[in-house]
């Protein structure tokens, strides 16, 4: 376990994140152009989706797929309520801000998911390919819960049909699921034909992406003054709560060690792409600095450095893997 944590902390991926963090905190002008960051995120989504789909094609459709996706949907719906309760206890932030934050923690962070698969691979483990589809399924439901929590408050949320389409068809969901389907349709042959693009250089590309995430998180930390202590505590405790819920679901479903670990990771991670966009439209009164800083500058680094190896160790013990 400690070995695992140390190994993880000394991986090029985590160290690249730390480098970005350091550069931002030291106010270096190091920066990744927006277009490059977006390009890399397209690459990661395409690669991870495709590999998941090819994995499903290789092992055949698993009867657990539907149940696992269902479990993911339920978790994404339910976790914001836990997060909201926890926040109301721990932090003095407003009801609106708390609801907005809660929505982020029901949804998922795809880079955390990617880092988890990398950790699994390094540990010689694999997971069910369809976990990618579960990730996609968990992106949006939490937004609904957040809006429901809000409407019980000042009832001022704006939810139009456009917003629905934007949430359900947001670029990252479409690309992730689309690539998953392509991977499933083209199978091992498809994977072989583009493996030199989506498999071999993957970890290296991820380093550059995490460098950028470190830069963003570091810039976020500079405005961490918006968070009270309770909020920071929440950002460290909530992933554990989420992971526990994910663990329960994974065990109930009888997933593999890798599958359980990914389920924990998804539940433990917080969104910073799809949910913020929806919140800006539906709840402009909520302060974006609060939810972005918590998600990107507190929970993401925690998961990346300590959370992931912990989840893996726990998943191993619980599944005997």
């Amino acid at each position: 376990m400690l070995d695992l944590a140390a190994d993880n902390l000394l991986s090029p991926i985590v160290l690249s994140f730390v480098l970005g963090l350091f550069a931002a905190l030291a106010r270096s002008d190091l920066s990744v152009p927006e277009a490059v960051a977006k390009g890399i995120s397209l690459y990661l989504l395409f690669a991870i989706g495709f590999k998941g789909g090819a994995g499903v094609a290789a092992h055949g459709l698993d009867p657990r797929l539907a149940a696992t996706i269902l479990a993911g949907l339920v978790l994404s719906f339910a976790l914001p309520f836990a997060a909201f309760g926890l926040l109301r206890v721990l932090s003095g932030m407003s009801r609106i801000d708390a609801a907005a934050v809660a929505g982020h923690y029901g949804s998922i962070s795809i880079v955390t998911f990617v880092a988890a698969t990398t950790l699994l691979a390094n540990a010689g483990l694999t997971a069910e390919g369809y976990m990618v589809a579960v990730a996609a399924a968990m992106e949006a439901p939490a937004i609904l819960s957040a809006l429901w929590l809000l409407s019980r408050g000042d009832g001022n949320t704006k939810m139009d049909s456009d917003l629905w389409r934007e949430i359900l068809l947001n670029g990252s969901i479409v690309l992730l699921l689309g690539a998953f389907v392509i991977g499933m349709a083209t199978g091992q042959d498809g994977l072989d034909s583009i493996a030199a693009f989506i498999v071999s250089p993957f970890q290296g590309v991820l380093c550059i992406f995490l460098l950028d995430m470190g830069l963003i998180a570091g810039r976020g930390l500079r405005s961490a003054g918006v968070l009270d202590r309770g909020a920071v505590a929440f950002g460290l405790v909530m992933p554990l709560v989420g992971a526990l819920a994910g663990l329960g679901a994974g065990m109930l479903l009888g997933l593999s060690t890798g599958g359980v670990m990914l389920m924990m990771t998804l539940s433990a991670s917080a969104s910073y792409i799809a949910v913020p966009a929806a919140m800006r439209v539906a709840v402009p009164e909520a302060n974006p600095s609060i939810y972005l800083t918590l998600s990107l500058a507190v929970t993401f680094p925690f998961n990346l450095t300590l959370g992931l190896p912990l989840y893996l160790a726990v998943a191993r013990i619980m599944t005997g893997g």
Partner: protein
Amino acid sequence: MQTHKAKRVEIIIERVMERRLTEAMTRADVTGWSVLPMLGGSGRSGEWSREGQISRGTGLVQVVCIIRPEKLDPLLDQVFSVVERQIGVVSVCDCEILRAERF
């Protein structure tokens, strides 16, 4: 060169609201506009920068819209209905345009 009086309306708004804004403009019968990128800025809600961003929730754009003076009021009404609850800045200045028949 013959020029005509017009109004130049410049609206700084979050990218996620761009489509809603242009749809509102269309409702005010304004069908010509341009969207300019922004690198960053600062305001009451703090500083932001577009560098390295991956979140779709952050970032602003500037929508520029040149109209005949008589269209200003209906346009501002529509624009206001969109920016009301959002962050953003709306400014209007007088200008002269060539080829007024196009507006």
